[in-house]
């Protein structure tokens, strides 16, 4: 009894009851297939602020805190890749002061992410900013590049932040890069002999292929997402990861983003586990 008592008090000193419960649930969940990559569309910050009569920008600040919690839960569970839709190219159509506020918030939060005690260092997160970064102002772009450089050596888990991103823009960019690569190959000496050296003649070697486009996507370093979670009950993808979600389980809880909790994530993963074998069968059949 004495050893049990000291064991319990030691545990309660270190962790709260909720954290213990969370770890217990994760231990149970990981009996089944666990997603390697989860994508989030953070929808509902403005509606949350309106519902509580807060200033519009405050909804995004609370949304950021919620994001930190969700990242912690994902990485504790062993999810290796998390992608978030932070700012769409379509969002530039918002009122200029709102766009500026979001850019300022992004700048502030990128700086926070790089602090010593932040989640990035605790979990060894490598951060990627993906999107058409040239559409961002100089300050935000520089901060994003600094964050990517500072975390480049982290290798435990990956956080992809989509800013100035749309899926169609990503596809067009990938096609452009594929085309430029083909042009460079054609300009090299002996480029016409490529087919002969390989021992066979390729048909239309200059044609862009699906694999070329996939290699040049902004998100080529990550596998396709297993689950895509969009809050606020909205059921559309809004030009997010359209190419990568062929076999992705889509989950749309009706909760606003700042109210999303650990239990919503658990429910999403339970539903993923229910359809995992079907989606794997479809994936393998295509390949």
């Amino acid at each position: 009894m004495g050893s049990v008592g000291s064991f319990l008090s030691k545990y309660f000193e270190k962790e709260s009851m909720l954290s213990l419960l969370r770890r217990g649930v994760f231990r149970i969940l990981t009996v089944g297939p666990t997603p390697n990559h989860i994508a989030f569309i953070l929808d509902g910050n403005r509606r949350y602020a309106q519902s509580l009569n807060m200033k519009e920008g405050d909804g995004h600040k609370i949304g950021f805190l919620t994001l930190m919690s969700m990242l912690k839960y994902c990485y504790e569970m062993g999810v290796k890749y998390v992608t978030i839709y932070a700012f769409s190219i379509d969002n530039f159509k918002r009122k200029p002061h709102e766009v500026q506020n979001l850019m300022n918030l992004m700048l502030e939060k990128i700086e926070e992410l790089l602090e010593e005690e932040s989640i990035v260092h605790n979990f060894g997160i490598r951060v990627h900013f993906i999107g058409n970064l040239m559409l961002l102002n100089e300050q935000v772009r520089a901060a994003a590049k600094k964050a990517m450089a500072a975390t480049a050596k982290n290798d435990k888990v990956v956080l992809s932040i989509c800013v100035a991103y749309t899926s169609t823009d990503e596809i067009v960019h990938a096609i452009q890069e594929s085309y430029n690569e083909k042009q460079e190959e054609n300009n090299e000496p002996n480029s016409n002999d490529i087919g002969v050296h390989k021992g066979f003649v390729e048909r239309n070697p200059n044609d862009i292929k699906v694999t070329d486009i996939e290699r040049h996507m902004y998100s080529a370093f990550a596998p396709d997402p297993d689950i895509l979670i969009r809050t606020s009950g909205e059921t559309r993808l809004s030009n997010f990861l359209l190419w990568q979600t062929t076999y992705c389980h889509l989950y749309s809880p009706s909760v606003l983003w700042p109210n999303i909790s650990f239990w919503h994530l658990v429910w999403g993963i339970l539903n993923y586990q229910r359809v995992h074998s079907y989606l794997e069968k479809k994936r393998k059949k295509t390949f």
Partner: protein
Amino acid sequence: MLNRPQFFEFADYKIRNHDDEGFPYSYSGIIFLQFAWNIIHLLASMSYVFWDIIYLFQSYLISSGLLKKYKSLNINQIHHLAIVIESEEAHNTSRVIELLRWLTTLGVNSICLYDMDGVLKKSKDIILTELDDASLFELEAEKKKPLHEQKQRIVEFASLSDGKEGITRAANYLCSHDVKIANGTLVFTEANMSQALKACGYVGLDPNLLIVYGPARCHLGFPPWRLRYTEIVHMGPLKSMRYGALVKAIYQFLKVRQNHGT
């Protein structure tokens, strides 16, 4: 890329590897975790059965016309409706035809039928024969006809090869036609890719609403370029399709207000 242990290796992995805090799993611990996981999934399945019964009852109420709010739907807001069907279920052509008849009864006249393996494409002659005055989607050809000769209902058939491969074909079309040159090099834009897709025969409209009949809520490779702002609704397996559930899905879609990022 980083890997995770696969499901069927769970017990083996846990027995061979210690926990990070140096607390090794015992055999009874693994059995307990497996049992707890099964219980959680059993509870989840029971909740789904409960809600299925509720939705079944609601569906009968909707079909019977007792629920007034589902009676008059402003179908004109649905410009194009897409249906994704699991390929194994798509062989059940009579069910697909029944589904299309329900939609035409509701007033939906522009439909895209999609399945990954192209089963529906192979059945298109049977389906179109059963549906009166529906035509295969050939927008440009239809629009050239005088208004009174244009078909009233359009059914389009698509499969996985119309998605990523379709986009690739459009890209190669631009390469071979050099539509726009800047500084001596071809510049790809969303606008010229959209035009190239049309030139390659991908003239389908972007659907407002996509309904999925299959085991999972997943679009299964529906052409990505057309999915940007499409509402995606999962209806369950085709064999369990219900008219009331279809009406409810359309009703809920009609309540949605999209802000397109603004």
